[in-house]
């Protein structure tokens, strides 16, 4: 009997200590691929989030609470993501971050909208660091979703502005992954090129299955046969790496205008053949002029995690989240969401602001080119990216009109 009593007491104590510890920790669920074809992308994202959380905790935490990143492996599968989301919610997690795959983000937005409607007082917030289907901040915008990367349209607008100035480009080939994001990129490219340079002929507009193509040589062959002067692609992860691998093996010497050409793994496979040809439009690359403090910060990250510093937007996301929680002073997603909307923030690369009308972050973008003449190199190679002479794009210039009609909780 005594034994039973002490057991009960121990159990009560244990539950108490759990509830105490959960009061001082702020858990963020990280739902991204940690196995399978896109594991490299997901794994690197996780390292950035962990480092950002460490930095917040070293500075006293968010609103005095310790930030903890809890990883969930979704294998870039929307269905699996919903299972993982439920798991996260069951663990009492109120903040979800995700980025790889607009198909996944789309499923998460729907599920979180539903969850929040059905469970008032237990709302969950979705902070999206990389899924860039424009619909999420337009027709399908949600009060519970915030995006910290420029959407596909914003990037394409900047890319086509650059394209419009290149008089020697007459034929363009568009290749993308066959899902909502790839289609969004292709549509944006077609409409914007028709607007800005009606003389450019689109000689190919093709989608390939996501993560299934092992050898892009036949696709590269097609591009070469079509005499394209430039290639536009939204590919990411392994699809980007293998495309560039095939292109440089075949000696396809035309500019590749990419969203994720500097993505992890791509640089190591590109090699000399890609110098001056692979361009990317991003919110960050390592050779943008910045403060010494930020350089030291990048070095510290690379030392601690043994991988390149790539997702500046993860730090922007976490810093703004930290600021919002500090402002609110408690773990309340609704209040945090109101604090985030309209927030202005200073990053090492310029001012950013979160649009109140559609929850899209406005930030400076940079067009950069693969080069061997850079001060900070990537992935242990002698290569890196350098900003183009006319590659600095002011945040305000990327602002697009939105169709968002947001419903806010009263």
């Amino acid at each position, binding site marked *: 009997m005594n034994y039973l009593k002490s057991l009960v007491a121990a159990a009560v104590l244990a539950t108490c200590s759990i509830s105490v510890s959960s009061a001082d920790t702020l858990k963020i669920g990280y739902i991204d691929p940690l*196995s399978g074809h896109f*594991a*490299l992308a997901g*794994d690197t994202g996780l390292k950035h989030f962990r480092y950002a959380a460490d930095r917040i905790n070293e500075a006293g935490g968010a609103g005095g609470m310790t930030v903890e990143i809890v990883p969930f492996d979704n294998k870039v599968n929307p269905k699996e993501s919903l299972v993982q989301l439920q798991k996260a919610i069951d663990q009492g997690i109120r903040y979800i971050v995700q980025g790889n795959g607009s198909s996944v983000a789309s499923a998460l937005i729907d599920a979180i909208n539903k969850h929040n409607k059905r469970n008032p007082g237990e709302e969950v917030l979705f902070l999206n660091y990389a899924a860039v289907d424009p619909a999420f901040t337009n027709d399908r915008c949600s009060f519970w979703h915030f995006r910290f990367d420029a959407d596909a349209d914003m990037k394409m607008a900047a890319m086509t502005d650059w394209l419009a100035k290149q008089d020697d480009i007459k034929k363009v080939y568009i290749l993308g992954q*066959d899902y909502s994001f790839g289609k969004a990129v292709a549509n944006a490219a077609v409409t914007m090129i028709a607007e800005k340079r009606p003389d450019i002929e689109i000689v190919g507009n093709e989608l390939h299955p996501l993560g299934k193509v092992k050898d892009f040589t*036949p696709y590269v*062959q097609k591009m070469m*046969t079509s005499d394209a002067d430039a290639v536009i692609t939204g590919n990411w992860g*392994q699809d980007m790496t293998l495309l560039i691998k095939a292109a440089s093996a*075949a000696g396809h010497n035309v500019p590749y205008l990419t969203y994720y050409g500097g993505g992890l793994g791509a640089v190591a496979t590109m090699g000399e053949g890609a110098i001056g040809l692979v361009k990317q439009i991003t919110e960050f690359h390592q050779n943008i002029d910045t403060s010494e403090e930020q350089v030291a910060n990048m070095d510290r990250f690379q030392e601690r995690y043994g991988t390149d510093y790539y997702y500046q937007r993860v730090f922007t996301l976490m810093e703004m989240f930290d600021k919002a929680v500090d402002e609110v002073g408690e773990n309340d997603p609704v209040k945090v969401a109101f604090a985030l909307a309209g927030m202005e923030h200073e990053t090492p690369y310029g001012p950013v602001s979160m649009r109140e009308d559609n929850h899209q972050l406005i930030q400076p973008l940079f067009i950069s080119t693969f080069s061997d003449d850079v001060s900070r190199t990537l992935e242990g190679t002698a290569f890196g990216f350098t900003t183009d002479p006319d590659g600095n794009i002011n945040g305000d210039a990327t602002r697009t009109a939105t169709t968002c009609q947001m419903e806010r909780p009263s």
Partner: protein
Amino acid sequence: METFFFSLLNGVIYGLLLFMLSSGLTLIFSMMGVLNFAHASFYMLGAYFAYTIGSVTGFWIALFLAPILVGLAGAGVERWGLRKVHTNGHLAELLFTFGLAYLIDELVKIIWGKIPVPYEIPAALDFPLFTLFGAQYPAYRIFMLVVSIAMLAGLWFLLKRTRAGLIIQAALTHPHMVGHLGHNVPRVFMIVFGFGCALAGLAGVIGGNYLVTEPAMALSIGPIVFVVVVVGGMGSLEGAFIASLLIGLLQTFAISIDTTFAEIFAFTGLSPLSDLGRISIASLAPMLPFLLLVLVLMIRPRGLMGEREI
């Protein structure tokens, strides 16, 4: 013209890689009468072994050592695993290889991690061999072609022109008779199983750096290899050879054809804007091997060259 030439070359190389995998599988099938679900896992092991050995000794030694190691692993699996399960019938064997595939998958994840390893093409072969129609052709692919053809010739010679080959062929069809003649049939089976796995390992060594070396590689090529074996006819090496080339060429050529359904079926008035009309042949490429599988099973269930029904 250039599209045709390059598609032909790429298709043949991909086809030969498939054959290297499926030849082992089909040999093992004719022996055990059971499909080895773990076969693609041995292909993956080949790539990982080559990566690890290669980082110490360089690529060339790994090219020989890795398949031998995979072959030994395969022989071990037969000797201490399958042989015991064999007494319980085909279903038990099938389930055994099924479990083994998952086991190897998880082991690879534990040892080498979940993300791809940087298994690179050796520097000595990393240059464009020739330029044709303005496109460069990488030397490594021609190397793959040479290795595949050498393996094909070696396999043919071994099976058709040597005494060992005769015994193997006889043991495949009449194991009891061969046993009565004084040959150690279980040992022949073990050698054939190990040899089939070594072939898969060799495919992994030369395919791992051409494609990507990652824990999901077995899963992504496994289904295609089964398609090859079924389409070619279970247990038929000639059939596997024809089916491998057929599927390699089919997939590569399909990607280069942009014709949409709307254009093919224009006479039916199919609109190019409709969901069906928009589908192009190129976008069907990943599906074609499986379409072939279904068609072959419907029209000719024993496969192109097979001798027995499934």
